[in-house]
């Protein structure tokens, strides 16, 4: 099974304060540490598990500057085979659709049966890239995948998708296909020192948008459907009213307020 995994370098904001930078379109990253997007880490593990079980290759792709090499090499250290980094100033301002175009161009140049991405990026939280990538490649996809089983002939897979309320939806899909992987599908391993040493020596192919056969106007703001205008902090409310009384009373008061404001 030939697999491609897309990984993204994201800031670790779990325990840090986030401030908007002077451009208004980004956050200050000087004091933040970076790591592989959480869901992507699970996607890497799933690909390596499949490789270990039935054989094959795992190619790693990332869009970003040379700092992304750290995340790419971590995926290689865990068992990835080859890697491509797409780096181009023209990608600045791309939305998920434009990023998917660049990824699709890179994936088309590879032999693949299965493409795995994280279901959601921890920074922008769009959950668009994987699905758009499938559309651009013209292959089926399943999103929020929490179980993957390769069927015996290796040409089909059975996947479980996470639905609300702990429900799982099971589907069988033809390959090639794109899966967006949900966290919790497996238990990502820690790279061994041996793996890290080998990964540090591996070549990462760096490609520009032109190398992938795209025109710069197809990516960046020009090639995007959505353009980021600016970030702003949530407005702190001016007034909060606490309704008091038993549930029946507070419900009646709430209904009256909603009616009065014309919201229902």
């Amino acid at each position: 099974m030939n697999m491609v995994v897309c990984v993204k370098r994201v800031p670790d904001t779990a325990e840090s304060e986030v401030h908007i930078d002077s451009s208004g379109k980004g956050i200050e990253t000087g004091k933040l540490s970076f790591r592989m997007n959480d869901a992507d880490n699970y996607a890497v593990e799933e690909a390596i598990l499949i490789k270990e079980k039935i054989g094959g290759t795992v190619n790693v792709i990332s869009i970003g500057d040379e700092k992304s090499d750290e995340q790419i090499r971590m995926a290689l250290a865990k068992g990835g085979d080859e890697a491509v980094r797409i780096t181009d100033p023209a990608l600045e301002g791309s939305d998920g659709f434009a990023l998917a175009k660049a990824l699709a161009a890179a994936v088309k140049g590879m032999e693949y049966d299965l493409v795995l991405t994280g279901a959601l990026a921890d920074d922008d939280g769009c959950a668009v890239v994987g699905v758009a990538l499938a559309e651009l490649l013209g292959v089926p996809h399943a999103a929020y995948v929490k179980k993957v089983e390769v069927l015996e002939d290796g040409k089909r897979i059975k996947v479980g998708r996470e639905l609300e309320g702990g429900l799982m939806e099971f589907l069988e899909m033809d390959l090639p296909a794109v899966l967006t992987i949900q966290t919790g599908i497996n238990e990502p391993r820690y790279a061994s020192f041996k793996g890290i040493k080998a990964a540090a020596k591996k070549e990462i192919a760096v490609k520009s948008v032109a190398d992938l056969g795209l025109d710069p106007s197809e990516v960046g703001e020009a090639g995007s459907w959505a353009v980021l205008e600016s970030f702003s902090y949530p407005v702190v409310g001016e007034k909060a009213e606490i309704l008091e009384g038993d549930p029946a009373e507070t419900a009646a008061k709430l209904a009256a307020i909603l009616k009065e404001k014309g919201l229902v």
Partner: protein
Amino acid sequence: MLFELDEEKRLFRSTVRDFAEKVIRPRVEELWEGGEFPYDIVRQMGEMGLMGIPYPEEYGGAGGDYLAYSIAVEELARLDGAIAITVEAHTSLGESSFYYFGTEEQKRQWLVPMAQGKMLGAFGLTEPEAGSDAGATRTTARLENGQWVINGTKCFITNAGTEITGGVTVTAVTGTKEGGKKEISTIFVPNGTPGYTIAPKYHKVGWHASDTRELHFDDCRVPEDNLVGVRGQGFKQFLSILDGGRIAIAALAVGQSQGAFEEALRYAKERKQFGKPIGSFQAIAFKLADMATNIELARNLTYKAAAMRDAGMPHSKEAAMAKLFASEANMRNTTEAVHIFGGYGFMNEYAVSRFFRDAKILEIGEGTSEVQRMVISRALGL
């Protein structure tokens, strides 16, 4: 000259940190309270290659260097000193006698399973009456019908009594040299050898989950081939082993300091007195500034000593300096960290109290501060 780690070392650091955060952090309190040896964590560290980092792959190791090993010890100690000392004593003391002085057969039989993390190694130097004065060793080994017959007592020996301990390499007097000096040699004693008894775990001030024991040898017989290295070279051998151990102990002190510092820094930003976070008062801010400075200095000195060892340069003086400075800075740093927490710092529930109790031993173990100053002053020609 930029003091930056290369990509391999950065990746390795982030892997060990990630492992420590996810696997060790949730267990820290339980390990401290219960004092149970963490077999499952040791097994997992073995799978990651952390139990034999500086030894070649052909001997089961990870094929890394001393700097990588120091980084791993530091990252483990940032959360749990007991786990860090388990790795340190195993690697710097238990395994190194085989790697540097053992025969090919001894390496195959003992170093390989140890480096793979399937077996723990221990080193027995200290005795009730021979601490810093290692020349006062009383344990004896006499050769009789192709066997060493060992008698004596060793104390404060790390990793000696776990279920996965392979054995202990002990120093023993094997004769008298010309001029009346004791001839000291190192001999490996497998666990389970008749005549070798291991006392119950000590109750220690800190590092509760690490395995520390007193060992007794009573006409304990092992094959002559269990001699590790050259007969009569034991003193020289353990001095060279301790050079490496000191670098790793310095790294352990840096890690414990870093852990205590992070706790104190966070608390200084949260805790309010007189309507302001206590970190906004210069009295507290300057303590944290000093801690950060001490950690930076200790880390740079430790990495320098490790890099010198990796480059094959003489490094006894630098290893002693790193161990001396890092352990004494750690004692000051953890004392200040407790102080910043005020009364809460005196409570066992707070990590800083554990870091404080784990600190003192680093000024003592693998050569006291006084011994380090002796080594340094001798290197100065005094």
